[in-house]
């Protein structure tokens, strides 16, 4: 077996293994796995509406995955994507509700507000890390809670004690009448183009600019980078800010695309935390993140159809989806076994 075959085989085997173990779990708990997987398939590809919603679900995952991956490349673990996403969500919704401009100013302004809010929220842990060596994991986790409850309070003030900012003006909306008519009123919006553009931006920054080279270099070895004359502190802050900008944009997707408003949240959205898995599945590369986000978004959205069509309880569905992702993430183990058997054959 050549390397190329193994590269193709590993993800295929891991998905099949995941599906099989998931099937066993459904079987053991007394549900029909075939029916379940057909429902999952239909939930993702069943018709235009579901396909539109699947892409809609993938959009914020792309951006949250990029955010985690970008910081990772500079050796930083940004657990705060969730918080940066929430402040971005609120900032975009605020600009969308509070102002009334023509669309060519309003929409970019709302998106920019989200990016700036996310960037600022990530700047604080970046600064603390660079100047005082405070570990970014602790700071970003705490910043998540601050973001959640601060935005909740702000929404409350904004809406006079209500629980919702109200719907944004149409001039700030990413909603697409064209997509709606094509996908039977799914919430698919133009944000997907922004997300894909950002994938290209990340690739460009990392691979084609000096800044990107420095960022990666700091990620590989801080001391060597410093010795080579790079400003490590500046690069750490910059990396966190860019990561935060991606996260803020993910929030803008929710505010201006999917929901059209920001409401008081009783807990985290989970998109930021799932971004960690998306980034790791995609090996922190831009192209890999497209794959990771697609898998995550599709499974997550398709899973909704399993209780709907096959009558499997959400709890079992969550386990099955987690197992599929688990096996995909364990690709390395499968690769190890494949290579081992390969060597044995060659020895003979």
């Amino acid at each position, binding site marked *: 077996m050549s390397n190329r075959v193994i590269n193709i085989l590993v993800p295929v085997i891991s998905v099949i293994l995941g599906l099989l173990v998931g099937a066993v779990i459904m079987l053991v708990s007394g549900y029909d796995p075939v029916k379940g997987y057909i429902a999952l398939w239909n939930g993702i590809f069943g018709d235009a509406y579901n396909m539109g919603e699947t892409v809609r679900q993938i959009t914020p995952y792309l951006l949250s995955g990029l955010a985690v991956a970008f910081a990772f490349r500079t050796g930083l673990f940004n657990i705060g994507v969730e918080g940066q996403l929430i402040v971005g969500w609120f900032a975009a919704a605020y600009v969308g509700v509070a102002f009334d401009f023509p669309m060519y100013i309003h929409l970019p302004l709302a998106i920019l507000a989200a990016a700036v809010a996310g960037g600022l929220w990530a700047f604080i842990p970046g600064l603390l890390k660079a100047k005082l060596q405070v570990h970014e994991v602790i700071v970003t986790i705490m910043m998540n809670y601050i973001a959640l409850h601060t935005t909740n309070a702000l929404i409350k003030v904004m809406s006079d004690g209500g*629980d919702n900012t109200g719907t944004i003006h149409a001039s700030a909306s990413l909603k697409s009448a064209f997509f709606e008519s094509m996908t039977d009123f799914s919430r698919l919006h133009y944000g997907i183009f922004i997300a894909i553009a950002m994938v290209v931006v990340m690739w460009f920054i990392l691979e084609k600019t000096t800044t990107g080279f420095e960022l990666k270099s700091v990620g590989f070895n801080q001391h060597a980078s410093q010795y080579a004359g790079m400003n490590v502190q500046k690069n750490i802050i910059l990396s966190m800010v860019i990561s935060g900008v991606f996260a803020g944009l993910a929030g803008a997707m929710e505010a201006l695309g999917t929901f059209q408003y920001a409401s008081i949240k*009783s807990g985290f959205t989970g998109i930021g935390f799932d971004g960690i898995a998306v980034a790791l599945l995609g090996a922190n590369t831009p192209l890999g993140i497209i794959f990771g986000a697609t898998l995550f978004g599709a499974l997550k959205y398709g899973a909704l159809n399993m209780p709907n069509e096959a009558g499997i309880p959400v709890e079992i569905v969550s386990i099955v989806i987690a197992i599929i992702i688990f096996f995909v993430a364990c690709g390395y183990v499968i690769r190890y076994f494949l290579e081992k058997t390969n060597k044995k054959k060659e020895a003979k």
Partner: protein
Amino acid sequence: MTKRKFGLGLSLVLAAGTILGACGASDEEASKTVDEGAKKEATDFSIAMVTDTGGVDDKSFNQSAWEGIEAFGKENGLEKGTGGYDYLISTSDADYVTNLNSLARRDFDVVYGVGYLLEEPIGTIADQKPDAQFAIIDAIVDKPNVASAMFKEQEGSYLAGVAAALMSDSKKIGFVGGMESEVIGRFEAGFIEGVKAIDPNIEVDVQYLASFSDASLGKTTANRMYSSGVDIIFPAAGAAGNGVFAEAKERKTKDANANVWVIGVDSDQYEEGAVGDTNITLTSMVKRVDLAVQNIANEAMAGNFPGGKTVTYGVAEEGVVLADSRGAIPQEVLDQIQEYSDKIASGEIVVPETVE
């Protein structure tokens, strides 16, 4: 090569499964309607609901709605599933619209959104599906194809407050709210008002959890309240309120003489409070979501779906009532509560909706 062929085969199987699966389902549906049509006349009527993030077994609000739907289904000989009655659980805010859409596409005659969190999603979907009928509980959506049901929680909570004030030994009472909102605000306002009506000197400790699902937070809050001398807690916090029950039961298990009580909310939570032979549930402020759900379903089945209308259930409509205390509250206290109940029903007492 063989592996690749296997992959191709797998995708073919999946694709075939999709197509065949679709055929199978439609056949089944067709035969089912014929069968049921022969059995009973009105059985082509079907209803379904979407829960908020509390889930269908929150022992409270969503569960009460589901019980109403089940009762309606059994009454009319329906079966769980498409063409009968069903529910979908939302695990995040993003799921509301999708779940409502899924149910509307399965052609349920009335699709319920349970909880004020579904207000915007119901509005969105009602515009997109003008031919489908929707209903919302605890919020008002002014659309011709949406029926709204509201509750005067303040009236029921007032009675709960009266009961708590009359029964409290320590003269300290607790209120645990979920997230600050208009609905929970009505619980709080009514409860405090009821307590003050009996004895203005009683201290009411009000705490909000900022969550409807975090039971552990409910438990710590209850722990703090009971430790500070509170003897009766009224939680209005959905599934998070189960933590209050857990704390009270723990204290009662440790010390059979512990003077701790909980007033249940939304459903009759007597079962929740059982500790061996005793029970820590004083009574429950029952919000008859099941009644509202069934009323809307019955009207819709009779052909006059109350679209665009809002029905408000108060004490007078028996939409908010105190549950049977099973002996926890003595008869003379019950009589006193009944007096207040009558006064509210007749309009003599008007309970405020917000805390002053």
